[in-house]
């Protein structure tokens, strides 16, 4: 009975409702506390300013979207590939995995200026930064995903002399999807931050550039407007990843909870 509560259209509503709720709390807080705009602008003000400046913000959003999506996709493909190398090859694991970890741990933001010198201004350096910031969660989750596949499934596939490629496409990939998507989601959520950081460092357009400008002018309400748009981009990417997940792994336990009685434990 509670199973049907958060399903279907209601579920989608609830997302909207909780967002609207958050905005309402924000508006009320600003009014009740009488917060001045230079500290926290009211969402109503942010919205009107945003609408008034849509002609500036929208093109910038398109500019930011590109490195976000390209960098994310690159992270997905290369992250999974690296994970496979780590899982398959002990030599690779021994030599390159530590380097991967180090690469992840080095604060990219600190060395971002160097990327510009190495890769050049504009899209390439942005893509690189987004890629570097978001590929590690994918690698780590993919490694867990692939290592967790039951060895019996490999036995089954190998008993038919299946090629590595077939085992990958028919056994490992579908079996690993739930964990893979956990990594993809974390990476998707990081990618908007990564894109904006990249634009902080080197860019003459995009939302990050706008953010710097508005921030410099103490134009808090437009700063927040840009943050809202940026968050929407990130949410969009995240939602796409979730949609793809739902479409690709309808069979996973985490998706079929109806006959599954956790949380309704009797005691």
């Amino acid at each position, binding site marked *: 009975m509670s199973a049907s509560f958060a399903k279907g259209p209601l579920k989608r509503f609830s997302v909207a409702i909780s967002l609207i709720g958050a905005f309402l709390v924000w508006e009320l807080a600003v009014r009740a506390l009488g917060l*001045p*705009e*230079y*500290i926290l602008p009211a969402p109503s003000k942010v919205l009107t300013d945003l609408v008034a400046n849509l002609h500036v913000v929208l093109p910038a959003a398109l500019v930011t979207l590109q490195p976000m999506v390209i960098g994310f996709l690159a992270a997905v493909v290369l992250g999974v590939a690296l994970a496979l190398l780590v899982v398959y090859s002990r030599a690779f694991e021994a030599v390159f995995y530590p380097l991967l970890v180090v690469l992840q741990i080095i604060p990219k933001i600190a060395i*971002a*200026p160097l990327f*510009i*010198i190495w890769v050049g*201004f504009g899209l390439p350096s942005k893509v690189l930064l987004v890629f570097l910031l978001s590929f590690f969660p994918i690698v780590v989750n993919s490694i867990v995903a692939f290592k967790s596949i039951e060895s019996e499934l490999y036995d089954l596939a190998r008993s038919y002399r299946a090629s590595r490629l077939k085992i990958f496409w028919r056994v490992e990939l579908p079996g690993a999807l739930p964990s893979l998507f956990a990594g993809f989601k974390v990476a998707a959520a990081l990618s908007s931050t990564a894109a904006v950081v990249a634009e*902080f*460092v*080197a*860019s*003459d357009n995009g939302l990050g*550039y706008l953010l*710097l*400008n*508005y*921030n*410099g*002018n*103490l*134009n*808090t309400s437009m700063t927040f407007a840009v943050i809202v748009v940026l968050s929407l981009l990130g949410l969009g990417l995240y939602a796409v990843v979730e949609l793809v997940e739902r479409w690709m792994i309808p069979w996973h336990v985490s998706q079929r909870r109806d006959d599954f009685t956790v949380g309704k434990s009797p005691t």
Partner: protein
Amino acid sequence: NDKVSLRLNWLLSGVHSIFYLGVDKGIYAAEGIDLTIGEGQGSGRAVQVVATGGDTFGIADGGSVIAGVTRGAPVRSVAGVLNTSPYGMSFRADRSVETIKDIEGKTIGATAGEASMQLLPAIWKANDIDPSKVKILNVDGPGKLVAILQGQADGILAGLEGQVIILKQKGLKQKVFSFAELGVNTQGLTVIASDDTIKNNPDLVKRFVRATVKAMQAAKADPEAAVAAAMKAKPQADPKLLAEQLEVSLTLLPSPSAPNAPLGVMARADWQRTLDLMKTYQDVTTDMTADTFFTNSFVQP
């Protein structure tokens, strides 16, 4: 003693050693002020923090004060520190930029949101330069330095008491223009306080300003002591760099509009020009007058 905190406009640089000297020599203590100095993250941040009462005083440039006040931040400048704008442009000497007109066809590096960049249209206008012929390369601070050192940019927007000196230390031969000499002098760094503090504790403000002016005088008299005081507080700093920065900063204390005014006194003309420029070239709309943003009443009782 009053416990007072000061939020600098940025990380330690030469000009700030004035305040460290003031603490070190007991100038503030003599006025009954127990001062803690905190480094900052930009003038805008200092305006916000002082406005909310997070810090008692702050250091902020005139533009940030105007931006903040017109958006409702209850603060005011109570003393001028750098009354000449420290903004400038530096070019590689090997790119043959002799007069400002030679900038056409060149690439200059700038950081989005930095105040001097927003004044560029005024520079173009004042010097009859065709903006479409100048290419702007947007990079962050360190990126700017690398870009000019590498020759990817012919020039950059550089603070006269900051990046110009860093470039010099890196051995780059430069041709430097200051915004002031290009006809766009804006109000430079000032000491700010919140309206609350000014209203409820004018005596504290008065004492603080008095001590600050004394510290400026002391730094002028003995720059080496000022650098030593700063080094004591921040041992990781580079003393040679600080010394050179301070040396340039001291030349920027008076305003070209009023070269003979006493230390700390701000020129209304500078504020007016800053306000006008911001109204023309930035999204500042207000009917406030220049006097809303500053007061000399604490420097000149």
